């Protein structure tokens, strides 16, 4: 039996056609992977399947019967539940209340004992570390908040679970547990649609893969047989694969020889009590990676370098022509051309309701604003980064995630930084865009910018970094040089095994 038939869906927003002939079939007990670039219509598809949007034409069959999904609750009654891309939680409420959100009658009381039991059960199955159901969600690390959103979808035991890029913030171990859980569900005849930018991840999990390009379903493949090359080509059309490939060829590599110039020094930095001090010497043209499980200190360290979080002892200093200058807050960092690009572009990186040009030029504005100059500068970045937008006065939130990230990055590049501190810059970004960004980072390094890159994508760290610092329990656990950078080594270091 087909659990879900999607037939020739079309949906436009004004002039933009988000979906143009999207069809696929998902049978009961199947994990269906969907890949596509950012802006290819995946999110619109998810919104239609979960009852948030209605298609302009085309139809949906649920268990072979036509279905018009008009509300989220209606979709849920048909057994279709989706987990959105963003981590949508109510920060001030407890974990349990966040899981229970949107359930029960208007005047029904608190969740029943069985509900509590189910939620507890799910958390203990999906989380490596115990999650306290009465804890306030805002006190949890981002990775556990994401788990809360996933559990919220799973408590109703849906026949069809749609995960829209919703595992990127999870701890590696929790992600593995989730995949195991999804496989077990599959064996029980329940289906899932899994949207991800990580093709390797999809290959391990999905049965079939549907590729979407420009709102159209291009092809459905057997997931195990699909090679990464083929998928990338189908996803992006041919012309962009080349650019991805030359990013892989001839990477710029930094050499720490006698000429290497020190640019940033962290000396005996202690940001948590009872942990040994951390030292870092950062050279011009070097890319240093930061890795670790969520919440193990790597993010605090990056923010310390940026002057964003306070140290207990020690200091961070920028090395300049006339000696060292301390960096104690973001203003001082900015003055010394140390730029920090935050992780969450929606809340920390962008002014969502302002036009692209303002988002781009905000730190450059001083005195009278010279619009023409800014526009020219932005155009330069637009070409260099292959950004896609019609004009610079569009609201920035109308852009796809990858393009938004490019706006944030070009903003800080335009300030001509000497040190670039990146907090997971490619999270939730599609593969061609990732390659655009990789090329950009290498270009920057080549022109003598020092980069510190915090990433949750191990492959990215391996490809880009000259060395990687692995954090564990709030301390620097090990440092891996380029020669020894391997996935397994990184993983075992993150989990506290010495290598």
């Amino acid at each position: 039996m087909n659990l879900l038939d999607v037939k020739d869906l079309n949906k436009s927003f004004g002039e933009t056609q988000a979906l143009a002939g999207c069809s696929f079939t998902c049978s009961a007990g199947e994990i269906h992977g969907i890949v596509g670039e950012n802006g290819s219509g995946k999110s619109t598809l998810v919104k239609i399947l979960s009852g948030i949007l209605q298609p302009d034409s085309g139809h949906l069959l649920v268990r072979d019967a036509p279905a018009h999904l008009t509300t989220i609750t209606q979709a849920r009654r048909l057994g279709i539940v989706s987990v959105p891309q963003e981590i949508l939680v109510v920060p001030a409420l407890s974990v349990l209340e966040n899981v229970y959100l949107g359930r029960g009658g208007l005047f029904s009381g608190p969740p029943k004992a069985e509900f509590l039991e189910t939620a507890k059960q799910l958390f203990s199955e999906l989380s490596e570390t115990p999650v306290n159901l009465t804890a306030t969600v805002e006190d949890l690390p981002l990775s556990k908040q994401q788990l809360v959103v996933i559990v919220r979808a799973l408590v109703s035991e849906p026949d069809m679970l749609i995960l829209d890029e919703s595992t990127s913030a999870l701890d590696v171990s929790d992600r593995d547990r989730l995949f195991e859980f999804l496989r077990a569900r599959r064996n029980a005849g329940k289906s899932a649609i899994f949207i991800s930018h990580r093709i390797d991840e999809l290959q391990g999990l999905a049965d079939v893969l549907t590729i979407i390009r420009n709102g159209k379903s291009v092809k459905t493949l057997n997931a195990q047989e699909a090679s990464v090359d083929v998928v990338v080509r189908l996803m992006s059309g041919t012309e962009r694969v080349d650019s991805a490939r030359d990013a892989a060829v001839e990477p710029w590599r930094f050499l720490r020889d006698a000429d290497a110039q020190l640019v940033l020094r962290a000396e005996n930095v202690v940001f948590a009590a009872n942990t040994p001090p951390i030292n870092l010497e950062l050279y011009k043209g070097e890319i240093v990676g930061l890795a670790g499980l969520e919440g193990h200190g790597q993010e605090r360290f990056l923010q310390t370098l940026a002057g964003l979080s306070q140290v207990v002892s020690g200091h961070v200093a920028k090395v300049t022509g006339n000696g060292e200058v301390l960096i104690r807050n973001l203003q001082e960092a900015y003055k010394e051309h140390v730029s920090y690009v935050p992780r969450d572009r929606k809340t920390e990186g962008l002014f969502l309701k302002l036009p692209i040009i303002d988002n781009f030029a905000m730190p450059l504005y001083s005195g009278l604003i010279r619009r023409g100059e800014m526009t020219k500068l932005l155009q330069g970045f637009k070409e260099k980064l292959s950004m896609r937008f019609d004009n610079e006065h569009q609201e920035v939130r109308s852009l796809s995630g990858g393009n938004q990230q490019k706006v944030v990055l070009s903003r800080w590049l335009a300030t001509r930084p000497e040190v670039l501190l990146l907090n997971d810059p490619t999270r939730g970004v599609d593969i061609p865009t990732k390659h655009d960004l990789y090329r950009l980072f290498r270009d920057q390094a080549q022109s003598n910018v020092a980069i510190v890159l915090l990433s949750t994508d191990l492959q990215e760290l391996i490809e880009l970094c000259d060395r990687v610092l692995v954090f564990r329990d709030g301390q620097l656990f090990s440092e891996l040089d380029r020669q020894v950078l391997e996935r397994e080594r990184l993983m075992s270091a993150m989990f506290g095994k010495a290598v």
Partner: protein
Amino acid sequence: MATSHLQVPQSTSDPVGLHRLSFKKLPYMWVAIILFVILATLNTIAEPNLWSIAVLGGTVASAAPLVLVALAETPAILMGNGSLDISVGPLMSVVNVVVILLIGRNLSSPWDVVGVALLIGLASGLLNGVFVGWLRIQPIVVTFATYTIYSGLATHLLPQPGGSIPTWLSNWTGSIGPVPTSLIVILAAAALWVSLSKTRFVRGIYAIGGDERASYVSGVPIVAVRIMAFMFTGLLTSVAALMLTAEIASGDGNIGTPFTLMAITAVALGGTSLLGGRGGILGSIIGAFDVFFINNVITVSHLSVYWQDVAYGTILMAAIVINAVTSRTRRAV
């Protein structure tokens, strides 16, 4: 494990972190409580008989309209994103005037008076709620429109202040045994909210105020919750208006107007975030007593009339700033 690693270093490391944590442990209305203690002391000095049953009953009765309307205002503000109801003051005028007119036409039984008053409140809340919830118009715009309409309506219905009230209503300012009747009314209103507080309705108010999009994608019935929240506000505003009518024992088309700002002030003072999702009615009740006591202290302080407003504003500003600053650090943890 990951959780504890995130938390432990912060709590034990920088002194600023410790500082913040200690604020987090305090209840959200702690500024209002401290202010309450100070003001109660000052009031006791000014009026040593304050704590005798007779005087206390009178004090609670005078404070009751403000306390009730602050309670009413709370759910509207909790929904966040600039949500609030500024029509509560003039709505109190309308209810006050209508009640006086009813009594003037000999419809003075409790059933008639209380019933009509509550119906007016519910209808007004429904009106506000439909515009805000269903048609998605900014609450401040909608309730400013109804504010203006009610102001005009109340003065039109009763151009000259006047009228009288039946004994059963004036008894609301007295006491039953040692307990002030007005206190019973306040407790009843609070009990209504508390009994609803575990329902999806009230949790929905907090959820919408905390993150509207998260609520929407989880299937919280946003429109229904908004409409009902405004109806709750209207309902309790009517109770506040009845209490006010009992207190002033006559009708006045302008009597309610200042209550809008006092109610919003009381809610903010009580620690409820104007951004929504945090706070509650207990804070608003204490906040309302604070506002009442501030007025009281200033009135008996022999300050010139001109300086009274300045002093009032300054105290409020200080309290609200402390509240805002500490709640900000609380959230930053």
